[in-house]
């Protein structure tokens, strides 16, 4: 199993599956409940909602857009937690896209779609999408975790 599992003082989880929509809710609840138990996040219902929403949009997009056909390809989800930092990474091997070519939603005349990426960007501190030449696409959702007073107190002499 991966070397990163050995690192101390951080949490790391890796989930591999086919990007089937039946996994959307189980995964969402996993992410939500994990975030809910993290010291700096547990007290903020808003922050928990926001991370859950961002993950939900990201997984839905892999399942619907990266793999358009009914036969879904693999997705690898990695969650990293460090003291003040949460990152959720989704890797797929399906169709890639150019995020710079995606316009912001037209809020004067909203259509049926086109809100997902905007939500992710709005609710996370960082949203990074990268494709390589081997057909690997990685989306990184990053959220800073507010320091709790207890943590701060430990850091101070």
């Amino acid at each position, binding site marked *: 199993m991966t070397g990163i599992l050995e690192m101390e003082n951080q949490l790391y989880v890796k989930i591999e599956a086919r990007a089937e929509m039946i996994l959307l809710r189980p995964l969402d609840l996993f992410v939500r409940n994990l975030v809910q138990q993290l010291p700096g996040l547990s007290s903020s219902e808003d922050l928990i909602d926001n991370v859950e929403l961002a993950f939900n949009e990201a997984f*839905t997009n892999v399942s619907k857009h990266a793999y358009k056909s009914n036969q879904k390809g693999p997705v690898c989800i990695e969650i990293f937690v460090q003291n003040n930092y949460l990152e959720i990474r989704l890797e797929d091997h399906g169709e890639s896209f150019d995020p710079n070519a995606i316009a912001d939603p037209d809020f004067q005349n*909203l259509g*049926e779609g086109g*809100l997902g990426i905007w939500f992710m960007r709005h609710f996370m501190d960082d949203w990074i999408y990268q494709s390589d030449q081997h057909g690997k696409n990685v989306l990184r959702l990053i959220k800073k975790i507010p320091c709790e007073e207890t943590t701060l107190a430990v850091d101070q002499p």
Partner: protein
Amino acid sequence: MDVQRKDGVVVISIDERLDALAAPKLKETVKKMSEESSTKLVIDLAKTKFIDSSGCGALVASLRTLLKNQGDLKIARPSPQAQTLFQLTRLHRVFEIYDNLDAAIQSFV
């Protein structure tokens, strides 16, 4: 999803999650309903803890479908999470929103 009729108004109660799995069913149901002209619809979100972009999209699509057929749609009892999304997307100006189910129904009468 649960559909009821009250005082000539249709009330659709959405389940816990209005996400990409639930959105198509809502759109389809509203589409069928709108074949009758002038459908009066309340979407009750009281049980809905989580809504995403697909859920918002399904609400927009439902409103459009109804308006095209002289119908209309009101939203009742959105959660704080839903309210946040409606405000961000300015959908709170597109939808008539009630924090009380009866008020939403009575607004049609």
